């Protein structure tokens, strides 16, 4: 039983389901929820990179999402093509992450956590108060959908329909997963995990831990900005709540329950939990309370979340199977007269 091969079949299966989904599910409401799930998956996947893999507590994630959102919102309203505004805004988010990471990642982990907590609050304050730029608490409305792409000599792909938007976001999610997979399964990803597991040893083993942390942080912020930019164009309007601490905390819950430091975990969390909360409407006002309790319980007792539990089970089964493989011939031999 080659686990790696099995993993590939899973990816393929889910990919096919995702492609076919709009034709199976026709409810507009569900479609919007799924698109939101995809966007939040991108956000949670990127949070996973800095927090789950590199072990650094970045609590400003929604802030970078917001930077991407406001960037795209303002630029596209000003006439810039979505396809230029998006990478630009994501890069802006990454650049701000770089500037903040530079002084704060040199210090002990707690200072970075505090600094990003402050940064997150600051970004929401600025978003709400810089009225000339961000429109204050009313936010930005009337953001155009992504600029149509003209494929030479053939069709023009428009993104006004929910269907087109669905595939657009799905495409970016797949792109993000692809990038995450490549980063994590490489020496770079290994150095992230080394820094998380034992920073002092990593330094002694020749790894520039500061550079590793900064790299993880900047990449994570880029993808957060990317998700934010997509969000702005698809939702059509944004407000300071797009960059709120509450959003960061939500993603933290999705990530931890789904499974930090795994590739499937963030996506599971970003889908399953909002769906559960939607169906349990009567608990709406207790949501953050439940999340708070879950966060503490999960980090203490189930640090690798749901995905981690699944992987652990898989490991146990594999070991059992291997043991049975070895014992089989031995049992047969001992039974020979």
């Amino acid at each position, binding site marked *: 039983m080659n686990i790696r091969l099995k993993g590939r079949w899973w990816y393929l299966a889910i990919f096919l389901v995702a492609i076919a989904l709009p034709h199976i599910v026709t409810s507009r409401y569900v479609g919007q929820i799924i698109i939101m799930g995809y966007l939040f998956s991108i956000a949670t996947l990127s949070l996973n990179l800095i927090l789950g893999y590199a072990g650094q507590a970045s609590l400003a994630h929604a802030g970078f999402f917001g930077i991407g959102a406001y960037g795209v919102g303002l630029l596209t309203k000003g006439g810039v093509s979505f396809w230029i505004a998006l990478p630009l805004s994501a890069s802006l988010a990454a650049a701000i992450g770089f500037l903040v990471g530079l002084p704060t990642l040199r210090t002990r982990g707690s200072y970075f956590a505090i600094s990003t907590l402050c940064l997150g609050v*600051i970004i929401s304050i600025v978003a709400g*108060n810089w009225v000339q730029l961000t429109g204050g608490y009313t936010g930005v409305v009337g953001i155009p959908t992504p600029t149509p792409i003209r494929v030479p000599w053939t069709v023009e792909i428009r993104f006004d329909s929910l269907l087109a938007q669905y595939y657009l976001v799905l495409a970016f999610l797949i792109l993000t997963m692809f990038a995450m997979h490549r980063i994590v399964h490489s020496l770079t990803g290994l150095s992230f995990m080394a820094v998380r597991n034992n920073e002092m040893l990593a330094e002694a083993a020749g790894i520039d831990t500061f550079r590793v942390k900064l790299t993880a942080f900047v990449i994570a912020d880029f993808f957060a900005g990317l998700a934010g930019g997509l969000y702005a164009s698809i939702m059509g309007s944004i407000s300071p709540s797009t960059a709120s601490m509450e959003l960061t905390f939500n993603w933290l819950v999705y990530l931890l329950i789904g499974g930090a430091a795994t590739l499937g975990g963030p996506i599971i969390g970003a889908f399953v939990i909002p769906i559960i909360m939607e169906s349990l409407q009567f608990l709406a*006002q207790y949501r953050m309370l439940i*999340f*708070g309790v879950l*966060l503490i319980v999960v980090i*203490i007792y189930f640090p690798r979340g749901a995905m981690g539990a699944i992987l652990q089970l898989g490991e146990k089964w594999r070991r059992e199977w291997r043991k049975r493989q070895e014992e089989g011939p031995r049992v047969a031999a001992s039974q020979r007269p």
Partner: protein
Amino acid sequence: MQQIFNGIMLGSTYAIVAVGLTLVFGILHIPNFAHGHLYMFGAYIAFFLMTIAGLGFWTSLLASVAVMGAVGVILERLAYRPLRERPHIDSFISAIGALMILETSVIVIWGPQGRRIPNPYPGIIEVLGVTMSYQRLIVIVAAVSMILLLNLFIKRTTLGATIEAVAQNREGAMLVGIDVNKVSAITFAISAGTAAAAACLVAPIFIISPTMGALLGMKAFVIVILGGLGSIPGAIVGGYILGLLEAMGGGYLSAAYKDVYAFGALIVILSLKPTGLFGKEVA
């Protein structure tokens, strides 16, 4: 001059809250992100006692301190102690869970809008052209007393010395037979209790709301980092400096942005001196 008075009052509050935080953070190495929310919860306990149970101001304050002290102990026991051997990031996450619980509980029970606590000492006196309300004077006097008491406690009592011992060397303290668990619990109790006291003192002056703790907690962290982790004098000095800056700068800087500047200062100083202004070198 008026602003200086207000600054001192504000600074007194910040100093108390920062000292409580530096005790826990500097001594137990746990960044308690929920500290600001403990402060906020303390105010609400007093609000509840004063408006529903009809207790007096000082009774409510003392009761709140006691309750919050207990909450601090519970918080340490349930959210931080299990994570002691784990990497710090796990404690951060736990702290976030705790603050979510505290904030939402308040919103669920009392609603998201601001509440008023009746002012027990209305009235003002005029000194040298400065209008001082009695309540604000009380804040200053009470806060300074608390700070002095705390200092005496740490320096002069055995328990205080024990706390210092754990701060210097946890393993060594354990070998000498010091019960680290008890020390952690007591330190948290003190930390939460003093925050609650500060909140109750200030509550009649400002409106209390579920989010009043978040920003304060943030500023407390800025103060503690700049003043040096575990340094009580640093926390006090930092608290007063921030209070004075805010009060005096209020006229020149936009109210919304003043917090932005505090954070900006943090980033700048961390870039120059990664251990904070008075911090010790991290060996």
